[in-house]
C-alpha cells in the first residue's frame, strides 16, 4: 500500500514538474514571438538599420549572419570532413597520438565563446591586421563549427555498417576508395542533417563575434557584387554585425527611439531562423535518405 502511495506521489510530482517546464518553455517561446512578431514586417526585413530614427530594419544584419555562416562553413567543412574521415576510417583507435587529438576536439567544443572571440581578436584582428572583418568572424565561428561538425560527421560515418567497408575492400578497392565511393555517399544524408543543425547553432552566436566581425554594419550596396569593393555584400574584409550581435548592440547602445521593438523583432526573426534550420535539417536528411536508399535499391 505504502509503495503504491509513494509511487503515485512521485509520478504526480514528475508530471507536475514536467508541466511546469512545458509551461516555462512555452511562455518563453510565446513571449519572444509575441513581443517580436508584431514588429516584423517586410519593410523591417529589407531595409537598412538606422541609428537615430525609428523604422530601421535588419537587412544588412540578416545578410551578414548568413554570409558569415556560409564563409565559415566553406572553411570548416573540408577540415571537419577530413578529420572525421581520418578518425573513423584510418585511425588506430588505440593510438595515444589519436587520443590527444580527440581530447583536443573535446576541449575545443567546451571553450567559452568569449575566449574564442578574444583569441580571434588578438590573432586575426590585431596581429594579422585583418581588422573587424567577415573573414576574422568566419574564422572565429569556424572554431565553434569544427568540433560540432567533426563529431556529427564522425558519428554519421560510424553508423555505416562495417559490412559495407568489408564489401568495398573485398572488391579490391583501397581504403580511401572505399571511403570515397562507398562510405561517404552512404553517410551523406546524416552528414547534411548534422551540418544544418550545426549551422543553426552557429547562426545565433554573438559573444565570439563582438570583437572579430565587429559591431557595425556598413550599408551594403546590393548592386555591387564585386568582392573587392568595400560596399559590396561579398567583401570579406568589411565589418559585419550579425543579427545576434545587433540584438546585443541595440539593447546596450541603441540610440533609436524604437530600440526595444527592433531588438524584439530581431529576436523573433532569429528564433524563426533557428526553427527553420531545425526543420530543414530533418527535411533534407529524410529527403536525401529516401533518395539514396531508393537509389541503392535499384
Amino acid at each position: 500500500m505504502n509503495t503504491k502511495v509513494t509511487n503515485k506521489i512521485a509520478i504526480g510530482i514528475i508530471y507536475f514538474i514536467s508541466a511546469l517546464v512545458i509551461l516555462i518553455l512555452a511562455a518563453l517561446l510565446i513571449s519572444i514571438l509575441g513581443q517580436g512578431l508584431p514588429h516584423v514586417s517586410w519593410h523591417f526585413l529589407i531595409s537598412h538599420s538606422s541609428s537615430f530614427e525609428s523604422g530601421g530594419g535588419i537587412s544588412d544584419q540578416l545578410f551578414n549572419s548568413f554570409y558569415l555562416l556560409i564563409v565559415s562553413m566553406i572553411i570548416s567543412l573540408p577540415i571537419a570532413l577530413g578529420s572525421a574521415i581520418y578518425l573513423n576510417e584510418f585511425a588506430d583507435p588505440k593510438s595515444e597520438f589519436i587520443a590527444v587529438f580527440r581530447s583536443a576536439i573535446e576541449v575545443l567544443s567546451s571553450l567559452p565563446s568569449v575566449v574564442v572571440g578574444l583569441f580571434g581578436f588578438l590573432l586575426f584582428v590585431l596581429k594579422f591586421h585583418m581588422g573587424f572583418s567577415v573573414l576574422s568572424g568566419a574564422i572565429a565561428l569556424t572554431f565553434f563549427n569544427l568540433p560540432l561538425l567533426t563529431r556529427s560527421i564522425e558519428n554519421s560515418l560510424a553508423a555505416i555498417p562495417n559490412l559495407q567497408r568489408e564489401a568495398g575492400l573485398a572488391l579490391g578497392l583501397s581504403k580511401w576508395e572505399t571511403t570515397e565511393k562507398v562510405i561517404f555517399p552512404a553517410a551523406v544524408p546524416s552528414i547534411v542533417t548534422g551540418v544544418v543543425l550545426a549551422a543553426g547553432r552557429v547562426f545565433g552566436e554573438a559573444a565570439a563575434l563582438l570583437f572579430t566581425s565587429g559591431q557595425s554594419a556598413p550599408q551594403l550596396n546590393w548592386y555591387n557584387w564585386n568582392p573587392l569593393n568595400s560596399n559590396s555584400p561579398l567583401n570579406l574584409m568589411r565589418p559585419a554585425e550579425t543579427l545576434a550581435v545587433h540584438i546585443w548592440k541595440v539593447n546596450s547602445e541603441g540610440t533609436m527611439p524604437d530600440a526595444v521593438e527592433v531588438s524584439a523583432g530581431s529576436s523573433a526573426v532569429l528564433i524563426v531562423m533557428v526553427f527553420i534550420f531545425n526543420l530543414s535539417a530533418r527535411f533534407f536528411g529524410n529527403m536525401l535518405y529516401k533518395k539514396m536508399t531508393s537509389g541503392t535499391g535499384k
Partner: protein
Amino acid sequence: MARRNKKNSQDPIKESLLRKSISAKKDMFGRSLSLSALILIGVVVFSIFFFVLSRGLMAFTLDGINPFKFIFGTVWNPTTPDSNGNLQFGAFPMIVGSFLVTLLSALVATPFAIATALFMVELQSNWGKKIMHPVVELLVGIPSVVYGFIGLTVVVPLLRKTFGGSGFGILAGTIVLFVMILPTITSLTVDALRNVPNHYRELALAIGATRWQMIYKVILRAATPGILTAVVFGMARAFGEALAVQMVVGNAPIMPNGLLESASTLTSILTQGIGNTSDGSVQNDVLWTLATLLLIMSLFFNLIIRFIGKRTNITQGGH
C-alpha cells in the same frame, strides 16, 4: 568513371598494375589529407591555449601582480588608483559571482531537467518523442542573446517589482541561466535515459516494482553517469556564457552580498572591459588573465566529464 573505363580496356595485366599504383597513391593522398585536417584542429587548439595563456600570464610576469592576490583579492579597481596610488586587481568577486550563478542555476535546473526527461522517456514516450523532443532541441539552439533580452525585459522588471531594488543581480543571472541550460541538460539526460537497456525496465517490472521504484531504483541509478555528464555540460555552458549574463547581472565588481544585489562574473567584466582598454596595458593584461581563468575552468569541466565517462565504461564493462 575513370576506373570503369580502365576495366574495359584491352591490356588487363598492365592496367591492373597501373591501377593499383594509382589507387595506392590516392590512398596515401587521402590518408595524409584527412590526417592534416585533424592535425590542423590540433594546431588550432594548441594556439588558442598558447596565445590566451601567454597573454594571461603577462599580468603576473610583466606587471608583477601577485597571482595569489589576484585570485583571492576582493577589490577590483583597475583604473583609478586608491589613496596609496595603487591599482588593485582582485578577481575574487568575479570568480565567486561566476561560480554562484553557475552552481545555483545548475542546482535549480537539474531536478527540472531530470523530471522532464523522465516524463519524456519513461512516462509519455510517444508524446515525448514526437513533440517534446523537437521543442527541447529547438530551445537548445536559441541564441543566448535572446535569453539575455528576455531576462532584461521580463525577469529584471519582475524581480524589481517583487523584491524592490534594481532587479539586476545574481538572482536575475541565475534565472536566465536556468532557462538557458534547462534544455541542454534535459536533452542530454534524455539520451542518458534512452541508453538504459530495455531489459532493465522489464526485469524491474517483472519482479513487481512500481513504476516509481523502477525509475528510482533502476533507471536513475543506471543512468547516473550520463545524467552527471549532462549536468556538468550545462554548468560548463553556464560558466562560459557571457552576453546573456552581462545583460542582467548588474556588473558590479564587488563581493556578492545577496542574491538581489548587483554582482559580476568573469565573463561580464571581460566583455565590458576589452573594448575600453588598449593592448599592452595592465588593464588589458588582467582581462586576459580573467580569460585564462575561464579557459582553465572549461578544461576542468572537460576533465570531470572525462572522469565520469571513464567510470561508466568500467561499470558497463563489469556487467
